[in-house]
């Protein structure tokens, strides 16, 4: 028996269905069926958490911020423009929360600014430890560290475009920048990631 008889749908179709499900859930919540919000949380919590985690690199804070993002979205649900994509709106809230968190932490951690060896990254918290990720592929570990050294500006486009694999239209909805500008930012961020990766690899080789 082959399990290939399962209906196969194109991803774009699945995405459109999810967007339609979101829209329906939002309408239900606004109509007083607040339990319908659970479907939204369940559908998006992993990706929201992943984006926040990759931006702030702290597991506990990432969970707190994920929760905060969903609650902020819930409170503002009445102002959500139903013509827009709900997931983009949610990502936008999450990215802004993560950036605010980073700013607040950067201010707080001004004294030990030079703690990170790569310098530029104003992130706080636990970078994956070499011992913990020893069993993981060396390449992934380096990639992770290289990403963490980039600026928030570079990281946000890379996380959304390359990690979440969102189309430019969604990046535009989330970050509010023109698509052409976003494409340039992605290309530059990828170049800087490569430089950071090479630097880390060189250092590792030493």
């Amino acid at each position, binding site marked *: 028996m082959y399990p290939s008889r399962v209906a196969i749908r194109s991803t774009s179709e699945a995405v459109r269905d999810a967007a339609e499900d979101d829209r329906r859930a939002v309408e239900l919540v606004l109509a007083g069926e607040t339990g319908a919000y659970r479907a939204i949380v369940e559908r998006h919590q992993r990706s929201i958490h992943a984006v926040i985690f990759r931006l702030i690199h702290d597991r506990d804070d990432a969970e707190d911020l*994920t929760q905060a993002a969903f609650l902020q979205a819930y409170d503002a649900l009445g102002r959500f423009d139903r013509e827009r994509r709900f997931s983009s709106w949610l990502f936008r809230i999450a990215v802004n929360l993560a950036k605010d968190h980073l700013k607040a932490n950067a201010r707080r951690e001004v004294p030990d600014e030079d703690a990170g060896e790569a310098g530029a990254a104003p992130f706080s918290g636990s970078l994956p430890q070499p011992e913990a990720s020893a069993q993981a592929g060396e390449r992934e570990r380096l990639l992770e560290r290289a990403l963490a050294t980039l600026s928030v500006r570079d990281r946000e486009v890379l996380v959304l475009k390359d990690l979440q694999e969102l189309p430019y239209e969604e990046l535009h909805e989330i970050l509010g920048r023109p698509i052409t500008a976003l494409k340039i930012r992605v*290309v530059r961020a990828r170049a800087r990631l490569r430089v950071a990766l090479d630097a880390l690899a060189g250092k590792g080789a030493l």
Partner: protein
Amino acid sequence: MSDDEGSQLSRLKARTPEPRAGLTDAIMRQVALRPRPKRPWWTALTRPRELVIRFRWSRVMGVAGAAAVAAAALFFVKLDGRRPIFATQQNSSARNSATQQNSSAQNSATQQNSNAPDVATQQNSGAPDVATQQNSDSQSSATLVRFVLPAKAARAVSLAGDFNGWRPDATPLLRDPDGTWRATLPLAPGTWRYSFVVDGKWVEDPAAESYRADGFGGRNALVRVGG
């Protein structure tokens, strides 16, 4: 190569920690404590709404609609038939001075009635005269019917019948110089009851094809229009 970096980053997905299992419940507990989100009231005013207008047709309505169209068509045809109304008014006003016999109009009409068949026979081979050829610009099923009444002494003659709701003023006749009054109407196939109105008095057509009792002790003339 840069695309390569991009696809490489997606490999980090597997290394991204999952949120803990109870996160959804924690969020929903918070949600339960919060005021229910509502749309601002003005969005109800500005929100575009779909408006669907549906028509439901039954056979009865279809038939009624067709009848309404037919009635409208007939109405215009009748207007056509009434066009000489202006000419009639001019004629009658001009003739008012010329006519001396203003005594009892009915009497004169009755007198005229006696020789009506003659005139009718001579001129029209029976009144009303049903034209066999159909008028090109009237409704295709309507036939032109000419109504003729010789009444030299009459000041005003009109025609009332099924076709105009029995309104005495609806269809005035035109007077010829010889004292014969005429009107031509397009009529649909069928049998039509009618009567002349001579100076306000109902006068039956002396040359009608046939007659039927009018239910008021008198009778109405009939004209049959073939289909």
